[in-house]
């Protein structure tokens, strides 16, 4: 029977959606019973106390966690988030309750064998509570004591060939969409690029040398299934620069009704017979599609690769063959100056191992940011402060109309002296000969 009464939390056990309360309760019981006779390295009742503390927060309408303080593993600047409870007497099991960020595998694919190993480790040395996964992408080990941090790290690296993820003013754990592994729209191998960048930049990930956090995310196409454009300082989004491949027979299949629009993703309602004009041609943002008799035509030069038509008719339309990715820079959450989406930095770049070209861009961006960025200034904030022009200059990318949604509407151009005929040094007395005071 439970250590603490949790009348409020108990109300979260009903209802269809999986209840984290029920789950935590079953773990609490399991630890109490301890059928496997595990030599728990942190208090056996850690989960009971976690539930008790959370219940208290539900009563008080406020958190009971304090600031972290500097805890971590030797030589790493990140991977651990320190946490202490503000009621240690009442809830000694969670007096320390640090989280560890475990760098997830690409595409978040697992073997059960590996998952079980992680569970064994975490039952022994931690609370047994996790997040699968954290918002950035890591496996989150939620709650252990300081003295276990090194032990866990040692086992991870020695037994499981597994490293920690990022936190602090580091490169954060990169994340990818499932992409080529199971998606027909991947314009490059997101898992491979993500893996290579993670490994090539281990030093940046583990040892804080940056003004603030820095995030990479890898989306295989503009659908952005890992939301890179909204939450990574550098977003790598797949695209192509040749033509959408059309299977005219399949087009007829959709028109005829044999094939379900959007792969059947709208099955919950009768939207009526598929109308290619209404559902595809008219919704194309560039108006670059039309029917020529029974033939669907696309003026690919005008297509901006928004994916809509392909999303609607996956069997008829396929991404082009000349593939690569666009790099966007500066996305971040609102604090402090307001949220930013990534701004287009590289319209198109090939994505082939060993990705030297891409790394060249990354490193030039870092050089600038590390040089100019203030403490706790994200790349996007520096871009706002010094301008996209500046970023293009330092990365040696030729400014192009594609970099802007629209040209500036203010004429306040900061001309450089070398751009102005005759330079800036003038003799006022010479001027005064023609213009009296």
């Amino acid at each position, binding site marked *: 029977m439970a250590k603490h009464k949790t009348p409020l939390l108990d109300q979260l056990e009903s209802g269809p*959606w999986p209840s984290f309360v029920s*789950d935590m309760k079953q773990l609490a019981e399991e630890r109490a019973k301890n059928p496997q006779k595990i030599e728990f390295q942190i208090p056996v009742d850690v989960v009971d106390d976690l539930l008790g503390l959370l219940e208290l927060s*539900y009563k008080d309408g*406020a958190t009971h966690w304090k600031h972290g303080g500097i805890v971590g593993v030797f030589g790493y600047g990140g991977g651990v988030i320190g946490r202490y409870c503000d009621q240690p007497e009442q809830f000694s099991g969670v007096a320390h309750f640090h989280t560890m960020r475990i760098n997830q595998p690409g595409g978040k694919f697992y073997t059960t064998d590996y998952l*079980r190993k992680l569970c064994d480790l975490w039952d022994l040395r931690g609370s047994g509570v996790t997040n699968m996964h954290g918002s950035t992408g890591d496996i989150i080990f939620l709650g252990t004591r300081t003295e276990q941090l090194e032990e866990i790290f040692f086992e991870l690296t020695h037994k499981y060939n597994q490293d920690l993820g990022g936190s602090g003013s580091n490169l954060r754990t990169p994340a990818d969409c499932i992409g080529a592994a199971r998606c027909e729209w991947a314009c490059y191998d997101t898992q491979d690029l993500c893996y290579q960048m993670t490994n090539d930049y281990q030093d940046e990930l583990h040892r804080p040398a940056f003004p603030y956090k820095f995030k990479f995310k890898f989306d295989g196409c503009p659908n*952005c299934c890992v939301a890179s454009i909204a939450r990574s300082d550098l977003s790598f989004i797949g695209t192509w620069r040749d033509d959408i491949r059309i299977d005219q027979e399949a087009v007829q299949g959709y028109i005829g009704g044999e094939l379900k629009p959007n792969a059947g993703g709208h099955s919950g309602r009768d939207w009526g017979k598929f109308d290619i004009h209404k559902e595809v041609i008219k919704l194309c943002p560039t108006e670059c599609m039309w029917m020529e008799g029974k033939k669907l035509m696309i003026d690919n030069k005008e297509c901006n690769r928004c994916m809509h038509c392909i999303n609607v008719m996956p069997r008829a339309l396929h991404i082009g063959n000349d593939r690569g990715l666009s790099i966007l820079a500066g996305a971040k*959450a609102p604090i402090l100056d307001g949220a930013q989406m990534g701004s287009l930095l590289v319209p198109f770049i090939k994505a082939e191992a060993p990705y030297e070209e891409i790394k060249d861009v990354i490193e030039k961006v870092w050089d600038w940011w590390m040089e100019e960025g203030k403490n706790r200034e994200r790349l996007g904030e520096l871009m706002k402060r010094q301008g996209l022009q500046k970023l293009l200059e330092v990365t040696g990318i030729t400014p192009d109309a594609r970099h802007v949604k629209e040209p500036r509407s203010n004429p306040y151009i900061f001309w450089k002296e070398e751009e102005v005929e005759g330079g800036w040094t003038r003799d006022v007395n010479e001027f005064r000969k023609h213009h009296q005071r």
Partner: protein
Amino acid sequence: MAFISSGYDPKEPMKNRITDIGPRKYDEFYPPFIAKNKGKWLYHEYMKPGVFFHVAESGDKVFTVRVGGARLMTTVHIREICEIADKHCGGHVRFTTRNNVEFMVDDEKKVDPLVKDLESRKFAGGSFKFPVGGTGAGITNIVHTQGWIHCHTPATDASGPVKATMDVLFDDFKNSRLPAKLRVSLACCLNMCGAVHCSDIAILGYHRKPPMLDHEYLDKMCEIPLAIAACPTAAIKPAKVEIGGQKVNSVAVNNDRCMFCGNCYTMCPAMPLADKEGDGIVIMAGGKVSNRISAPKFSKVVVAFLPNEAPRWPQTTATIKKIVEAYAKAARKYERLGEWAERIGWERFFEKCELPFTHHLIDDFRDPAYYTWRQTTQFKF
């Protein structure tokens, strides 16, 4: 209990230390049919909500069953996932970018037994362990954050409101009746770890009371200059305060300039903001991430404040339900919530969702606010 060493020696931390090895390589964990057909997929199709298959050039098919997950999971639950994956999926499983779990099989015949098995499992409290759904034009899992379970700055809980909201939206997790995908996210403070700034509907924890000043300890617990520098509105100034007869260094806050961001608290534990009545939830709407048809959009604040009503946040869930129903009723096929609001005009959005428009929703934060005001005579009565 007895201490068990991993082999790590505190006296010699560097002794055969291994570092910088990164994550496990993705392909170690691919199921065989994924490894074989990677990069050669042709198309996909939904069989029913939560179940879809992909067809490869080789003719191979992979059938995926997606189940909802409370991303706050225990090892007990993970072990059960493993058990299922062993039984049906040759010991392979994956998680999605929105914290759902995907079970994959290579044969259509294996789908029904898998689904039946998944749907049959329930927690003691009665909730599903593995509800199948979350695909297509419906509502999938809520991306969220820590809240009261682990963080020190939240203005609301995360897992609780998420559970309460998903219970209310559950039908749309199991069904694809909406005009398009509708993404719900939650972040428990405006750091927005859940990246709620671009979701169709966002639940955001927000403080409304300026920090309390623990003068007696402030100078001891904090670097005063850092606290002052942390404030985006320059509301904090150094101050000398009289405590028990003696002057101590502390800070003063100009409450009227405070926007309750909590940056000072992040820098200085002696400036707590949390408050039962002050803290609560902001509802945002109309954001999106994909580049489909229209460019990505930020979410907009549509309800300035709702109280923290633990354990089930009824006003929050009711408001969200209202928005979803209004959208389901009025939007066009393929139209995201934000695209709908922009087409009909935000004045209509509030009408159709039966939400009051209050002065709080008018941007007054810095210069760009101007661009959100209405610079045209085009509006609807």
